[in-house]
Every structure is written in structure tokens, then in C-alpha cells.
């Protein structure tokens, strides 16, 4: 069930109604939300609901055993067992065929490879996300970040909660489980903020992202040889805007829906293309993933505690694995490697403490130049992220050198591109003023305005609903 569909709207309205009518009975309320979450997942494929429940159950049992264990050794054993089960599930579904093809390719370099039947299971929707949730639960229990004992129902709901189930944001057990331990407060629903988030998310996804995808990006990446420099550059910028609007749109809707149900999700994007350096970018892009990787991978690897060389190695490992998390293909690994390289290079550059350079770094001109440079470096990464193969990625980059007019630059495309990229520079006070203004309207009028906004989005969006890019991760 995709967010921008009538099915989801009907499903969500029903869930909202029943969930709030059960809000005083917290146990029943959570049980209902769990059932609704499995129903939501089952809409895609009922066959994988047991997998989702199984992973949740394993992580819940492991978290409980970690908390109950008296010795550090037992705690660690439970953690390793739980994480191993989760990661091997992820590895089986996501990386088996990638592993086999890579081994066979390497084999073919030295000898004729054997004929083997390569297992290739269908990738369960959102498996990367719910496995990361499960790991977060066990890690937070191990690090004693959970103040209360983990209840099984809470663990199951935390992993499967439908607004974040398919594509995040990746919640931390330490921040979400406390919300589940007490009934939701019907007087603390941030309706205006939630409505604005849902409208903004739908607009970004349905109008900007879909329009750029169908009218610009897909065409150029399908046959880059047929386009010249201007179209190719537009498509690369277009993809930067498309992926931002697609993914941040999804998380905006997820955060808004959770907010209407009385839950708080963390912010997942913060105007990433306004970042001035790679570190800043990763503090603004897919924040819940980058902090997950930082806390559960980079820091356990040693973080920046082992000297400059070791820090660089840890950064590269983290970003390479982060790239591989996005997809089982070498193009994603290269994307991760590029970002790892950017982070390492920036760290080395920052270590130069020459006074004139320090002064220059503080100027506005420098900040804007850095922003521009970083944006283009990120765009270079997006080419590998988007292209189905290295051949296409290099063909796209090669076309930047071939003169050609902007044949795809229609008014809707340019408008969508501008909104997708420049929209990140809108002052925060605009949103707050709008939220304040909405708060002064009668509730029925707010509902009518919300319906009007949905109507406009439906009119402006291209026909058909493209799946969210991050669904396949």
C-alpha cells in the first residue's frame, strides 16, 4: 500500500479513528496498531508477514534476555546471537545473488567457473529498515539505554509500526519504546504540524519527484547517448531533486501520520543541499540512517579514537557498508566509496590550520563556494546511485562533454527542479508562520484546506503512482 493512494487514505482514516477510540486502553491500543501494521504489510505480500513477525520476535526475545542476563558474557552472547540472526536474514534476502555472481565473476578470471544454481529470493519490502530497527532494539538493550524492561508487544510494534515500516525513518528503541509505555495524550496531538508535513510530503513526492522522474531523469538515464550536455546536466540536477523529494516526502508523510496517532518520529532531513561540507551533508541527509551507522558501526569500529589513519579507515568502511545497504550492486558501493572519500578528504582539509585559510573559511563567499562544490560532488555520487550499470553511469558523465540543447527543459520540469532544489532554502519562519496561521482557523476550515491541498496535488501530479525509490532498499 503506497502512501499517496486512496487505499492508504481509507486505511489510515480507519486506523486513526479506532486507535484514538482505544487510547485509554494502552495494551489494546498497541495490539490494534500491531494488527494494522501487519495488515498494511500484508497488502504487499502476506507471505512475508511471518518474516516480519519473526524478526521482531527474535529481537524482542534477545532484548529481554540481554536485560535479564546477569553476566556481561551472557549479555554479549544474546546480542551476538540476535544480531547474527537479523543480519543473516538480511544477507540471505538481499545479498545472496550478489555474493554468488561476484564470486563466480572472480572465479572466471582464473578458471572456468562451475555451473551453480544461484539462489535469488524475492526481496521483502522494507527488509533493510525493519532489520535495522531490530538491531537498534538489541543494541539499546545491551547499552542499557532502555530504562524499562522490554515488553514483547512493544518490541513487536516498534519494529513493525506501519508509518516507518517500509522506508523509515529508522527509529531508536531508546526514544520510541518510552512512547509506547504510556497511553497517548489526546490533548497533545500536533494536528497543524502533521497536516503540513503530510501535504508537503505528498507535494514533494507526487508532484516534484514524479514529474522530474517521468519527464526528465528516466529519459536521460534510459538512453544517455541520445542527449547532449544541457539535458544530461538537467537530468543529473533533476535526480538530485527527485531523490530528495521522493525520500524526504515519504518521511514527511510518515512523520505526519505518526504525529496524528500521537507518536513522535525524529526528523530525517534538514535541507541537505544547503550543507557546506560532507560531514554537514550527512547530518542533514537521511539523518536516522547516518546516526544509526555512526552509533552502531562507526563508533564500535573505533570512531575517531584511534588516530587520523584509523579514523579514515573507519569512515571508509562505514560509508562502503552504507552504500551496500542501499543495494546489492557495485554502483552503490562506488557511491558509498565516493562519500567515504569526501568525508576523509574533508577531514584532512579541515586539519590544515593555516591562519589565512582559516579566515577565508569564515567568509560568505567561501561558504557558498563550498556549498556549490559539495552539491556537485553529491550529484556525481547520484549518477552512480541512479545508473543501472557502470556503463550507463560513464555514458551519462561522458555526455556532459557533448554539446547539445536542453530539449527536455519544459516549464513544468524547470519549475519542479527549482522547487525541489531551491525550496530547501526557504526560511523556517515561513513554515512556523503558516502553522501559526492554520492554528487560528476553525478546525473544519483546516480540514477543508487540507482537502483542497490534496486536490491540487492530485491535479498537478503526473498520472499513475511511481513507487518510492527507497522501497527497494
Amino acid at each position: 500500500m503506497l502512501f499517496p493512494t486512496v487505499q492508504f487514505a481509507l486505511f489510515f482514516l480507519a486506523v486513526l479513528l479506532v486507535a484514538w477510540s482505544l487510547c485509554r486502553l494502552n495494551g489494546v491500543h498497541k495490539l490494534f496498531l500491531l494488527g494494522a501494521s501487519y495488515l498494511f504489510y500484508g497488502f504487499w505480500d502476506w507471505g512475508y508477514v511471518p518474516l516480519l513477525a519473526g524478526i521482531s520476535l527474535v529481537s524482542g526475545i534477545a532484548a529481554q534476555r540481554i536485560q535479564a542476563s546477569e553476566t556481561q558474557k551472557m549479555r554479549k552472547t544474546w546480542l551476538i546471537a540476535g544480531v547474527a540472526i537479523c543480519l543473516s536474514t538480511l544477507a540471505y534476502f538481499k545479498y545472496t545473488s550478489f555474493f554468488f555472481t561476484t564470486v563466480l565473476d572472480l572465479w572466471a578470471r582464473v578458471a572456468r567457473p562451475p555451473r551453480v544454481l544461484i539462489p535469488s529470493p524475492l526481496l521483502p519490502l522494507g527488509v533493510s529498515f525493519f532489520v535495522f530497527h531490530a538491531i537498534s532494539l538489541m543494541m539499546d538493550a545491551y547499552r542499557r539505554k532502555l530504562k524499562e524492561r522490554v515488553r514483547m508487544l512493544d518490541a513487536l510494534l516498534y519494529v513493525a509500526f506501519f508509518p516507518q515500516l517500509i522506508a523509515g525513518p529508522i527509529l531508536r528503541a531508546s526514544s520510541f519504546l518510552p512512547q509506547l509505555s504510556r497511553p497517548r495524550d489526546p490533548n497533545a496531538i500536533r494536528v497543524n504540524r502533521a497536516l503540513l508535513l503530510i501535504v508537503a510530503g505528498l507535494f514533494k513526492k507526487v508532484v516534484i519527484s514524479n514529474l522530474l522522474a517521468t519527464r526528465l531523469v528516466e529519459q536521460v538515464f534510459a538512453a544517455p547517448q541520445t542527449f547532449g550536455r544541457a539535458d544530461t546536466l538537467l537530468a543529473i540536477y533533476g535526480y538530485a531533486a527527485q531523490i530528495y523529494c521522493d525520500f524526504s516526502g515519504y518521511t514527511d508523510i510518515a512523520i505526519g501520520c505518526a504525529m496524528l496517532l500521537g507518536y513522535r518520529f525524529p526528523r530525517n532531513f534538514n535541507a541537505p543541499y544547503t550543507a557546506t561540507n560532507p560531514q554537514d551533508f550527512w547530518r542533514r541527509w537521511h539523518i536516522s540512517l547516518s546516526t544509526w551507522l555512526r552509533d552502531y558501526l562507526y563508533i564500535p569500529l573505533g570512531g575517531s579514537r584511534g588516530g587520523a589513519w584509523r579514523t579514515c579507515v573507519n569512515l571508509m568502511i562505514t560509508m562502503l557498508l552504507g552504500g551496500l545497504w542501499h543495494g546489492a550492486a557495485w554502483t552503490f558501493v562506488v557511491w558509498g566509496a565516493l562519500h567515504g572519500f569526501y568525508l576523509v578528504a574533508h577531514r584532512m582539509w579541515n586539519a590544515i590550520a593555516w591562519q589565512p585559510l582559516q579566515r577565508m573559511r569564515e567568509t560568505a563567499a567561501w561558504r557558498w563556494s563550498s556549498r556549490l562544490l559539495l552539491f556537485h560532488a553529491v550529484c556525481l555520487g547520484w549518477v552512480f546511485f541512479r545508473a543501472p550499470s557502470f556503463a550507463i553511469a560513464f555514458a551519462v558523465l561522458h555526455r556532459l562533454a557533448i554539446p547539445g540543447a536542453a530539449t527536455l527543459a519544459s516549464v513544468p520540469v524547470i519549475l519542479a527542479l527549482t522547487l525541489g532544489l531551491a525550496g530547501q532554502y526557504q526560511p523556517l519562519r515561513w513554515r512556523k508562520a503558516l502553522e501559526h496561521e492554520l492554528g487560528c482557523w476553525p478546525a473544519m476550515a483546516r480540514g477543508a484546506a487540507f482537502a483542497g491541498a490534496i486536490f491540487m496535488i492530485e491535479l498537478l501530479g503526473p498520472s499513475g503512482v511511481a513507487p518510492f525509490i527507497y522501497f527497494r532498499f
Partner: protein
Amino acid sequence: MRAQRFNSLRQLAAVMAGFAVTILLIESEALTVWADRLEVSRTAMIAMQATSAIHRTLRPLGIEDVREEGVAGLDRLGWSDDPARLLAARDAYAAGAWPGRSCEATIATARTAITAPPRGASAPVVAGVPMRTTLPQLAQPMAGKPRTLALVGDSMMAVGLSDILLRQTAADQDVRVVKAFRSGTGLARPDVFDWMAEYPAMIGDAQPDAIIVAIGANDGQGFVDNGKVLAFGTDAWVKIYQQRTAAFLNMLTQNGAHVVWVALPPMKSGAYNEKIAEINRITYTVVSQYPQVIWWNPAPYLGGDKGAYREFATTPDGKTTRIRQADGIHMSDEGAALLAPALLNWLNPAPAVHVAQLALVPANPANHAKREGRSRVIRR
């Protein structure tokens, strides 16, 4: 100073009520369209009845005219991506009659434009389909006359195959490619996407003399005909699907175009594969009635030894490559590249077609290149 209203459950209920009332008022027609497009089931029938009742009740209020005006305005600005709507907008603008003519009028015109009787409609359904089919070359066009190739179909064309064909004809001045594909469509549900109306709009003024069709992956579902639900594969369903396929082929060939109907390849899911096999049997039966149309089975290229589903293949240099997408349905670029040489060979546009990229070893290496004529594959 205006008061901020405190957020509460009552507020939320009022907001949702305001939302529900407004959305029903302005979107009741869109809701009926949504219900009509649902996969045929009892729930869908209930949704259709409910939304139709709401629409009938609210229509006299005339609020939905706002929607029509909005759509018309956006079409005039060139915002729409729906070919039939764009064509309607263009026609109306050219006739100076804007906004008097609706999209429905254009669709109706397009529907009635196909007057030839469906020649293959009464053809009997054969038990199976041939595994090995050949693609003889088309006669070469006159020098200086570029070949116009239309790529037609659903996501079986949109994903993989169209990309490869576009890439491999990109450098060829003698081939003009018209893109006429749309994912999520098919011939079973004209209520969702009417190919008879959309195809003329998609090709516009182009007159393709060669057409490659890959369609049918979404057609393994029931549909409603004259208010009666017809389940997939029943005699009545097959008869109507044959008629729709025949009408579609009449439209494609009406200007003398030569057509390759790329049959659906074997699929990963067993149940789905059975439906696909049934669709292949039907299309084979219908296509066989058309001398200008070749039903071409890609299974020897994409399938295993006995035409079974195959996900990976080995390149001549021993590299293992995924030839199907992870969904077990669509072709990957590498899989589509297996079909491209034969299709471009059939096209026969000019002496120097540039066919590069990738060549994989077919599962049934009975020397396809020899059977299909000369091979233009540059192996690397």
C-alpha cells in the same frame, strides 16, 4: 489578537470531518474513477457502488466543475503527461473551441476510428505456443527514407527493453524511434488505460512502419463486461481478450506497419507464470491471423533449457549476469540486450546499424544468430 486553538482529539475529529466532506465534494468523480480501476473483486464492486452513489448525489451541486476547469487549464499549459488529454487539448486549441471539447469526446473519436472488424476474434485457442520462432528481416527501406520504429507496450517494454533498443539505435540516423509505452497498462482493462484511445495520441503524427510490442504482463486479472464480472481465463474472458487483442492489432497495422509481438517471457512465480502462459496462448492465436505481425517467443533467449524461468546467464567471457529484475517479472538491461540483436536484425534499417553493448550466451545455443540471419553483435 486571534486565539490559537488548542490541539485535541476533538479538534482532530473536526479537521478530519472537514477534510472528508470537502474531499467528497470536490473529488467524488475521481473516487469513482479510482473504484473503477481497482482489480475486480467483491470489495471493488462495493467500492464502485458506493462511490457511484456518492457521485450521483453530489453531481447536481456542480462543485466538480472546478476540477474540470483545473484539468483543462493545466492541459492548456502543457502540464499534462496523458497523451490522450494532450491531444484533446491540442485539438481543441487548434479548433478554437476551447474549452468546449472534453477529453471523453476525443477518446470516443479515437474508439470509433477503428472500424475494421477484428479479424482474429473467432480464432480457436491452441493448446500451446511454439518455443522457437523466427524473425525474418524486413525489406530494407529506400535509401534516405528513415525507418520509423514504435516501441509499444506496458512495463515489459518500459523496463529494460525500450532502454536497450533506444541506446542501440541512438547513433543510427536511419531509425526514428517513437516511444509509446506505459507501465501498469494492458489490454484487459481499457477502463484503466484505453490503448485504443491512447496509442494514436502517443504516436502523434508519426506513422511507424515497424512496431515492437511487449504487453500483457498486467492482464492476468478479471474484468467487468456489461456489468458482469468475468474471471480470468474463462471462455467469456478469453473471447473478449481475443477481440481486444485483435482490435489493438488492427489499429497498429492499419497503415501497413509491420509488427513484432514479443511474447511474455517465463516468470518466476509459478501461479503468475501459468497466467502468463495463458495470455501467450491467446495472443499467439490472434496474432497468427495477421500476416504482417510476427509472434516472437523470447523464451529461448531468456529461459532455461526447457524454456523455464532463468534469472542469471553467462557472458561469452564467463561473467555471470542477472538477466531478470529482482521482481522475477521484468527484464534487466542485460536480459533485454539478449533480445536486441534479433529485433534490430529484423528491423534492417540501413547497412550500418550500430549494435554494441552486450551479448550473452542464450540458454538454447542452437546458434540463434544463424537462424535469425546475420548477427550484428559486437562482443566484448
